Structure formats: C-alpha cells, structure tokens
C-alpha cells in the first residue's frame, strides 16, 4: 500500500444516499481474477445516463467523491474499493459508511472521511458552485479544507488507520510480527479443526 499524507484534488458531488456496493460495482464485474481494471465498471448502471454527475465534463479528473449517508452498504466485495480507486478516487467524504466497505477502504489506502450531514451538504454546495475548486484532505492533521473559500472541517480516524495510511503499512506484515502469540493461542485452543473430516477428494469420512 502506498503512503498517503495529504490529498489535493477536485471533488465531485454524488448527492445520493444509500449507495450500496451493487451500485458501485454491479456483480457482472465480479468475475475477474485480477485486482485492476474495475474502474470501467464503477457505477456502470448509472453511467449510461448522460446526466449522471460523473459524465459531467466539469468533474472529469476529480479525485474526491462527496456522497450521501450510508455509502458502501451491502456486500463485502472489495471490488467496490478497487473500482473507486481504479477510476481515480483517493478519498470518499460522506456522513456515514457501510462497515465492511470502510474496512476494505482502509486496507487499500482509500481515505474515508466521515463528516456530519450538514458539513457534507455545505461541501456539496461549494463544489457545485464551482467544480474547479481545490479540495484538500489532510490525513496527517485530520482536516478537510477548500482553500479558496476558507471552508475547513476536522474529521476523525482511529490512530491505527491513520498510522497505516501515513506509513503505507501492510497489515499482514504487521500481524506476522505476532507469530509467537498466534502459535501460543493455537496451543491453548480446543476448537476442532477440519482434520479427519474430509478425505483428499472432499468426501466426508
């Protein structure tokens, strides 16, 4: 994962609530065995509509998505995060998020900025007024700002997620440092495993 300290870019307002993961990346797109190339499938059911905001020329190249409440609810598909990132988004700003989506995002370095609904509404208006405005998401200082208007809001991230983002740490590598604790746990656990349940062909013994 690459380290993320500060993001600067333009923002696009989605103005929809309950954008679920089926909307972000429809299931047709889940058949790939690679991690890349999902950007073309992002919001694909909406992108045929010429009025859909991502088709608005003014927002082409935006890297920050401003959305309504409960963004990313639904399935566990990490493809939703891959699609957003492959399309070019680096941060999502919304009043609330689906739980698994938020987790998946943090693993990939997609920055999740949760702001109160009224702040999201203000930011939406700011970028609708003038889509070219630069928006800054500062992970180090936990702040979103629009320098041109002086608009500025703090946001929260747990320390771990923030440290991981800023250092580009790989979760698995971090956990592997705890190898001794894992082994000790395994020695003390009495929970059955699958040993002896199936034969080499998967038939129950």
């Amino acid at each position, binding site marked *: 994962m690459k380290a993320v300290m500060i993001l600067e870019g333009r923002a696009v307002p989605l103005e929809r609530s309950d954008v679920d993961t089926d909307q972000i990346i429809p299931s047709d797109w889940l058949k790939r065995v690679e*991690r890349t190339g999902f950007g073309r499938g992002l919001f694909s059911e909406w992108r045929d509509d010429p009025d859909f905001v991502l088709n608005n020329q003014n927002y082409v190249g935006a890297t920050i998505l401003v959305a309504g409440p409960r963004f990313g609810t639904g399935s*566990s598909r*990490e493809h939703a995060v891959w699609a957003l990132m492959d399309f070019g988004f680096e941060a999502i700003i919304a009043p609330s998020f689906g739980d698994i989506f938020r987790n998946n995002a943090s693993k990939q370095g997609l920055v999740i900025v949760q702001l109160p609904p009224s702040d999201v509404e203000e930011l939406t208006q700011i970028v609708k007024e003038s889509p070219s405005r630069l928006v800054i998401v500062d992970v180090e200082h936990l702040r979103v700002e629009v320098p041109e208007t002086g608009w500025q809001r703090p946001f929260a991230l747990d320390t*771990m997620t923030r440290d991981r983002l800023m250092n580009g740490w790989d*979760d698995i590598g971090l*956990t*592997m440092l705890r190898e001794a604790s894992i082994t000790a746990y395994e020695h003390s656990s009495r*929970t059955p*495993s699958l040993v002896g349940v199936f034969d080499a062909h998967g038939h*129950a013994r």
Partner: protein
Amino acid sequence: MARTLYEKLWDEHVVASPEGEPTLLYIDLHLVHEVTSPQAFDGLRLNGRTVRRPDRTLATADHNVPTDPISTPVTDPISKRQLEALEENCHEFGITVFPRGHENQGIVHVIGPELGVTQPGMTIVCGDSHTSTHGAFGSLAFGIGTSEVEHVLATQTLPQQRAKTMAITVNGRTPTGVSAKDIVLAIVAKLGTGGGAGYVLEYRGEAIEQLSMEGRMTVCNMSIEAGARAGLVAVDETTIDYLRGRPGVPSGEEFEELANRWRDYVSDADATFDAELVLDASELVPYLTWGTNPAQVVALSGVVPSPDEFDDHDQREAVTRSLAYMGLTPGTPMRDIPIDIVFLGSCTNSRIEDLRAGAQVARGHHVAANVRALVVPGSHRVKRQAEEEGLDQIFLEAGFEWREPGCSMCLGMNPDQLTAGQRSASTSNRNFEGRQGRGGRTHLVSPVVAVASALLGRFASPDEVSA
C-alpha cells in the same frame, strides 16, 4: 462479571490486544468461495506467503455456477476462469474444495452448517457479507473483504474493533403463516438499513427459541441488511440436536462432551446490552419489500406507500426514486401487483425446510401463465434430500423449474437473471437496484409467499391458494 454471548466469544479468541491498536482475533474457520478469493491467493503468491491453517479453511464454488444440469459446461468464459482459479488455488495451498457438481458443493452459508463444520463457540469468517448466517449456532461469524481474506489465509487472525451489543427480543409466538423471513423483515424495517451499524445483534425471546435452526439461520442471515456485521442466537438443545450426527462433528461420548461445552455459549442472565429492540411476535404478519433496500418493507395485506408518508426530505426523495425504479404507484394494494419471476433459493431460504414449506403450498396446483418460477436448492445435500422426499416432483408437476444448487438469481452472476423491467418475488436477501439483473425489480418474500405468488401470478399468501 456477567457477559453477553458476544463478549464471551470475543474474550475467548483474543490473541493479542496491543495498546492503541485493534485486537488481534483468532479465526477458527475460514470459508472461501470463487468470487472474493482469487486476488487474495494472488497476494499470497506475490509475497511468498502460505496458508497458515489449511485445516481451518474450506472452499466451495457457489456465486457464479450455472444452475443448469451439471453435464452442461460453463459457457461464460470469465465465470469458468474464476471457478478454475478456485480449484487451482485450493490444490496449490492444500485446502479442501468442493467444485461445481461435488456432492458437498453448495452455497457457502448452507454447506457450513449442514456439514457440521459450523459449530458453537467458533469465530467464522468468509469473504461474503451473509456470513452472519452462521451466528445462528452461537458462533461469532462475519463477512470480510478480499484483503482480510488474504490476512486470514496468511495468519489465521484478524485485527478487529470490538462491537457494541444489541439484544433483539422477539416475545411471544408468531401467528400461523408467519415465518422466520417475516420476523427478520420486520426487524430490518424497524432498525433501518443503518440501525445495526457498529452492533452485533443477539436475537432472543420465545419466538426465536421456537424457531428451527433453518429459521434461525434465515434471521441471522439478514443481520447485515440492518447494517450489523453479525447476528447471534444462543446455543440450546435445538442447536445441539441439529449438529448431532453431522460429518463435521465427532460421534458418541466425544460429541456429548463437546455439546456440554457448547451449552455455555449463551448470554449470562444478568448481562447487559448496549441497546435493545423488543418486538411482539403476535403482531407480526407476512411481509414483503416494495422498494430498493431491504428496510422498505410493507405487510402483504398493505399498499404501496407514498412519499408523503415520510417526514424527512431525503427520505421522501429516496422513496420517490425507489418507486420510480420499481415502477409502482402509491396506494396500489401489494396483492394486485403482477409478477414475472419467482425465485425460491439463496442462503436466506434454500434449506430443506424452506423447500418443504414451499412444496406444501405448490402441491396439486400450477404456476400461473406468464410466470417463470425457479427452485434452486442451497446445496447438493439439500437437493438430494428434497429428491428423496419427492419435493422435486411436486415442484415439477406444479410447473416450477428444479435447478442445480448455487447462488443463482440471488445476485445474477450466472445466467439466471431478471431482464429490465421484470418483477420478481424472491426469497433472497437484497432488493438493490439491478441486484438480480440490470433493471430488474426485486421483492423479498418468504418461501410460502413466493410459491403462492407463483401460483396466482401476483403477490399472494398461501391461504389464497384454493384447496
């Protein structure tokens, strides 16, 4: 100190709880399927890592297997590639896998319990949000993303934040004709799609105790639809009786010893929850969804709601958009709405009990003209048992299609899909826009309502099907 079931499960699985970091939790069972795993296996290879505990990992093909006869090949080249990748990856890393057509293959959340590998007291994860299903066994089970799948493959652990606890108490008995699906639709409607966020839900009360394991699984399955990652039901004799004799559990004395340990997986009598929702089961009726999220629920005897009934501006807009997508007019009685497709299947409602309930309604009747009705058993084991009981014949004679097991029309990754504008009565768990096929309109229902609706060509309850 008195603890809830969730707290007991959590405490028992802590590997390390470093200051200022999420707790590292041990994972007892990792279920794998073809869609969310290929990139995880790739990640392992890329970093020269192995699977730490292949003996705690089990894989099956389910999401995009066609439900045509097994003898017909998989025609979609990308699905085929994904199914092959699952087999190759499992062979390479020493994981037991049930490919398409294998006697144990089926929807991942159906096979875990029926094989008895889902057991009380376990932590269970799978790269699929409906992993909450397994919580019916008093196990902590939740869905994870692909990066987490890779994490569990490599370390058999997951960094986790502790959730809050919510008791969902369903007092009293449900009236006849009200199923587990109706109970959970009522709960999701009450909580809303975000109401369970941050919580683990524990379902309890007389109506839950009265449910079979199949019914409890249906309820826990849809916990995620209320935003909760996990649902739980305490262990009781129903749980233990269900597991006795299954392939994944020991037999005789050894089983009874294990069962004795399992009996501890209940919340202590004086444990406190962070929140509680109380429902009176006697007030429940058959429900269905009218809109594009699973909390948009109405009684089968009710009418399509109007945006004016909602106070909040955003909600009114969302309702208006849902109605437009669904092609519905406020005030229309739900029972007057004609349907095109009926889907009896998915990890919510494709177990033997669901098929029995459906067959009982279908027996001696025929699917309405212009309706296509599919029955997709959750697994080969379910299918075989249903065939032994003659349920396939009842469905076939009534004009239903009897398909091979898989996720099928629940998410339309295989050829079973709705076309634009088609309306379905579906026993699955998600009615999102396009979920069952682009432009498709999904109404979530119980198995008996699905079958009755197939017979009458519109939303209907079994008592409307003349004897």
